């Protein structure tokens, strides 16, 4: 967790033009992410955490969106990068895992073929080489029978299996940065525990820089090294995991922790 940041976000502002004027979804966010660390962005719905993540990937563009500031990946500015250049980075150097695994795959193709296709978009590999890589990455994601999974259609997989396959695809080309946007929110709690463990292990083994977007402070406590708390498009507090939980400075951080503690208490206790 040392060395220069792999990803640096500086004064990021994202606004959307609408009927009632400009909505400032992200309002001056600065973050730095280093190899081997998990940085969690935590906030409630509408706090701007997902738009921040999408902007880093260059996925917020077009005439309706006004993006300002700077996003540097390995020192290179992404906000003025061309679409072709971004396409080379996305999936290969900066990978992303989304919330809903069952809608992230195309329902009419076998999972293995979809992973093959993603890999071949970045590497000139023969059909056999690419399938080997697909099976190897599925195995690394803790899938017991990669061949069988590769031959399955998305609807034949459970939510947990689908998300494992998604994560496998994301890390197959050994990206430097993994952005996971609510990766376990759609999963049952017993499956969530397994998927979080997988993300933590991959982060460690591959020296990834992981940006974890979540609303769930329980998830944050399990896997994050550092935490940025967002509210109203801004980072209101940022710090090491334990500082955020045990010495929260900002009132919004304290509110989030208090809501969590309140719900964790048994009936009648206050």
């Amino acid at each position, binding site marked *: 967790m040392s060395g220069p940041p792999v990803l640096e976000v500086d004064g990021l502002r994202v606004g959307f033009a609408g009927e009632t004027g400009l909505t400032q979804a992200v309002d001056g966010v600065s973050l730095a992410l280093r190899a081997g660390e998990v940085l969690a962005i935590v906030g*409630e*719905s509408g706090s701007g955490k997902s738009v921040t993540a999408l902007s880093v990937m260059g996925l917020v563009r077009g005439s309706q969106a006004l993006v300002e500031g700077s996003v540097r990946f390995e020192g290179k500015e992404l906000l003025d990068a061309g679409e072709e250049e971004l396409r080379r980075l996305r999936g290969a150097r900066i990978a992303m895992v989304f919330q809903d695994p069952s809608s992230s795959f195309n329902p009419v193709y076998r999972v293995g073929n979809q992973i093959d296709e993603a890999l071949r978009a970045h590497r000139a590999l023969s059909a056999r080489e690419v399938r080997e890589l697909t099976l190897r990455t599925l195995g690394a994601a803790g899938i017991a029978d990669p061949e069988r999974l590769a031959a399955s259609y998305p609807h034949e997989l459970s*939510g947990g299996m689908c998300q494992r396959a998604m994560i496998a695809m994301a890390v197959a080309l050994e990206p430097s940065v993994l952005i996971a946007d609510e990766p376990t929110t759609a999963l*049952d*709690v*017993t499956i*969530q*525990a397994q998927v*979080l463990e997988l993300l933590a292990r991959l982060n460690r083994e591959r020296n990834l820089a992981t940006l974890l977007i979540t*609303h*769930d*402070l*329980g*998830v*944050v*406590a*399990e896997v994050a090294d550092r935490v940025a708390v967002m509210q109203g498009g801004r980072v209101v507090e940022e710090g090491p*995991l*334990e500082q955020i*939980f*045990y010495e929260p400075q900002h009132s919004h951080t304290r*509110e*989030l*922790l208090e*809501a*969590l*503690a*309140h*719900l*964790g*208490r*048994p*009936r009648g206790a206050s």
Partner: protein
Amino acid sequence: MSAPLLEMTDLVKEYGGKDGVRAVDGVSLAVASGETLGLVGESGCGKSTLCRTVLRLERPTSGSIRFQGREIAELSPRAMRPLRRDLQMVFQDPYASLNPRRRVGPTVAMPLKLQGLADGSDPRGQVEGLLERVGLGAEHYDRYPHELSGGQRQRIGIARALALRPKLVLADEPVSKLDLSIQAQIVGLFAELQREMGLGCLFVSHDIGVVRHVSDRIAVMREGQIVEEGPAERVCEQPSHPYTQELLASVPVPDPRRARARRAE
């Protein structure tokens, strides 16, 4: 304790004929007046089907449902209607369960009108009282659902369910679509109103933390069956079934030091 308000015995709900699915597989549970029974389980365990069956939105395949001492498993929709006054539901999704084209006031007034309990032709005063009861105000009467936040919408759902002063409320994941800070408010509101009105409640959730917070007793459901049932604290502190233990062990601990200690185990 007197006779339970709601009593299910060997309740079974199957779908899809011979090779079908037994979504609810021999469930026996009871809820007393003024009591909250928490029903917790993961997706596909049959908890929502159980709710729908108890409400008689579904016809049970076999078994008995007694509500206020009366067998309702076989009642026709028409015969169920007068009972619905005492048997209400709060749904999961406050976006989907409110008619987007109907203003808040008429939405809350609808059950009063249907059951003939409205004050004359304009129950506005009645409805405003209910809105205040759930922490909203008269100014919300003329709003549309899209003008309200998720938490406010769920308050409308609660006001609508409580309008008829029911004896039993079934709440199916009433807070799972809401932000955590809003969850805490809604759960608190729910508990307060329940105490005031002496309601019985079947509170269904996938979140054992939320269930523990609101329940007197907890039943844990898996693959259509109840695997464990008991007082809330006993089930959470000394779970006896391996599945309950797994469920509790999987809940992320919002405390980095405890989380680390648990991982090291």
